[in-house]
C-alpha cells in the first residue's frame, strides 16, 4: 500500500497458492480522496454482550449512551496531546467567549458564560493503535447563579477511534493523532464553534458522516443477532420510496420473527462468532421479499433511512443513538470504519 506520506517497505508474497483457495475476509476500497486503500471487512465478529462497566467508568458510560449523536469524520489531529486536556478546556472556553463577543455564537437570552471540560474516557479504545477517547462537555454558567447551583450541560461531544484500520493508522506521520469519529449533541451553533476551534488548533478538517445502506444493514443484522442475550423488543426499518410524492414506509418486525429469520440465514459452517456480509444480505432479502409478498412493493427500489431496535438506532443522515452499552464496541467499530473511509486523503 502506498500513501503519499510514507512508503511502507513492501514484501511481495509469492503467489504459490491460488486466490480461489480461500474466501477473502475483506475487500479493498479506496478512501474518498482515492489515495489510501483500506481493507473493508466482509466478516465481522458477532457482538457479544460485554459488561462495559468492567473496562469503562460507569458514570462515563451513561454520558455516551441514550443521547442522540450527530456523526462527523475528522482528519488526523496535529500535535494533539492527551496530557494537555486542561489547557484545551481553558482555550476552548476563551474561544467560545470570544466568538460570542463577535456575535457568531448566538445565544439570545441571558448572559451566560461557558465552562468547558475535556476528559479522557479510558477503556473504549480496543487495540493498542487506537487513541484514547476524548469527551468534551460544555456547561452554561449563568451570570447570576449562586455557587453550588448545578450547571446545565448545553453541549457534549466526543472523539473516538475503535478498532481503526491498522494500515491507515500506521501510515500516519508521528505527530498526528487519529480520532476519526466525532459525535456531537447540542445546538448546531456551538457545534460549529467547537469544530472551528479544532480546525484552528490542530489543522484538521471536519466533514459530515452519513451511514450508507450497507452499514445500516450491518447494524440491523448485528442487533438482531443480539436478541437471545438482550431482547431487542422490535426491529423497525424506515424506507423512503421514490414515488411522487415520496412514500415513507415504516416496517416493524416482531423480534422473535426477526431472530428466527436471522438464525435460518446463518450458514451451517459459519465460524462461530463471525458474521459474513452474505448472511446480512440474505437477511435483508428475506425481510424485503416478505414485504413484497404482502404489499407487492420492492423495498429495494427505495432507500433505507433508519434502523432501530431497543438496543439503539441509526439513521442514514448520520444520527446514532446507542441505548445498550453492552454492544458499544461493535457499533463504534463500524462507525469508525465509516469515518476512516470518508477521509479525504
Amino acid at each position: 500500500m502506498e500513501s503519499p506520506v510514507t512508503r511502507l517497505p513492501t514484501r511481495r508474497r509469492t503467489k504459490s497458492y491460488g486466490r480461489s483457495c480461500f474466501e477473502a475476509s475483506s475487500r479493498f476500497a479506496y478512501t474518498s480522496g482515492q489515495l489510501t486503500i483500506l481493507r473493508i471487512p466482509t466478516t465481522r465478529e458477532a457482538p457479544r454482550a460485554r459488561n462495559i462497566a468492567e473496562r469503562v467508568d460507569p458514570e462515563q458510560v451513561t454520558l455516551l449512551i441514550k443521547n442522540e449523536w450527530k456523526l462527523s469524520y475528522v482528519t488526523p489531529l496535529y500535535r494533539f496531546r492527551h496530557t494537555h486536556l486542561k489547557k484545551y478546556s481553558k482555550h476552548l472556553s476563551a474561544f467560545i467567549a470570544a466568538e460570542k463577543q463577535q456575535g457568531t455564537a448566538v445565544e439570545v437570552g441571558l448572559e451566560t458564560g461557558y465552562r468547558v471540560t475535556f476528559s479522557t474516557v479510558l477503556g473504549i479504545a480496543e487495540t493498542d493503535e487506537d487513541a484514547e477517547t476524548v469527551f468534551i462537555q460544555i456547561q452554561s454558567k449563568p451570570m447570576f447563579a449562586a455557587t453550588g447551583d448545578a450547571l446545565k450541560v448545553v453541549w457534549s461531544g466526543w472523539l473516538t477511534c475503535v478498532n481503526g484500520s491498522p494500515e491507515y493508522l500506521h501510515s500516519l506521520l508521528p505527530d498526528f493523532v487519529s480520532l476519526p469519529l466525532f459525535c456531537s449533541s447540542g445546538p448546531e451553533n456551538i457545534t460549529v464553534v467547537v469544530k472551528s476551534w479544532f480546525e484552528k488548533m490542530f489543522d484538521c478538517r471536519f466533514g459530515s458522516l452519513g451511514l450508507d445502506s450497507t452499514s445500516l444493514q450491518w447494524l440491523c443484522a448485528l442487533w438482531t443477532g443480539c436478541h437471545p442475550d438482550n431482547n431487542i423488543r422490535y426491529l423497525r426499518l424506515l424506507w423512503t420510496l421514490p414515488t411522487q410524492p415520496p412514500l415513507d414506509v415504516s416496517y416493524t418486525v416482531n423480534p422473535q420473527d426477526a431472530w428466527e429469520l436471522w438464525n435460518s440465514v446463518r450458514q451451517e459452517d459459519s465460524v462461530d462468532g463471525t458474521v459474513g456480509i452474505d448472511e446480512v444480505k440474505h437477511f435483508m432479502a428475506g425481510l424485503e421479499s416478505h414485504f413484497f409478498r404482502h404489499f407487492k412493493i420492492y423495498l429495494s427500489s427505495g432507500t433505507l433511512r433508519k434502523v432501530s431496535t431497543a438496543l439503539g438506532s441509526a439513521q442514514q443522515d448520520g444520527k446514532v443513538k446507542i441505548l445498550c452499552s453492552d454492544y458499544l464496541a461493535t457499533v463504534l467499530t463500524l462507525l469508525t470504519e465509516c469515518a476512516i473511509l470518508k477521509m479525504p486523503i
Partner: protein
Amino acid sequence: CLTSTQLVENEEQFQKKLADVIVNAEKDVSVGVRLARRLPLPVENEETRPCIDLVVFIINLSFERSFQSVELSLKYVDPGFFLGKVCFLVTGARCWSVSSDRLQSVRKLATSLRCPLLYAEDQTVEGVNTAAARLLRVLKVTAGLTPWATGLSLSTLTRCTLSSDLEGDFD
C-alpha cells in the same frame, strides 16, 4: 444511415432525458432510441422491431433494485450481443449515501461480461449531454459507421476491468 439503440432502465427517468438529447444531437445519421424498463421485450412487436446495434443498461446506484433488475434482464440478451454491443451506464456513483460495495458489484458484473462501463451524471443538463455524446460515439462504432473500428475492437479497448491494485497482494 439508420442506427438503433435500446436503453434499459428500471427507474425510467434518465433514459427519457438521454433519448431526447441523442435523437436531437445527431443530424447526418438517423438514430432510433428505444426505451424499456426491463428485458425481455414484449413479443407482440417483434416483427416490426429493427435490428438493435447497441443495448445500454442504465443502473442507478442509489437503488439496489436497479442493479437487481439489470441482472435479471441480462439473461434475455442474446450472447452475440456481448461481443461489443452491450454497455453499462452507471449514475449516482459520486453520491455520498451510496455504499462502495454496490459500485464494486456492478464493476464485477461488467468485468465478467467483458463490457464497457460508463459513468454519467444525470442531475444536470451538461451531464445528460455528455452521456448522450459518449453513447452516440459508441453507437456509431457498433453500427459500423466508423471505418476504422468495430464494436468488438472498441469494447476490447474500453471494457471494464477491476484494478489489479485492488486484487493484488499487499503487505
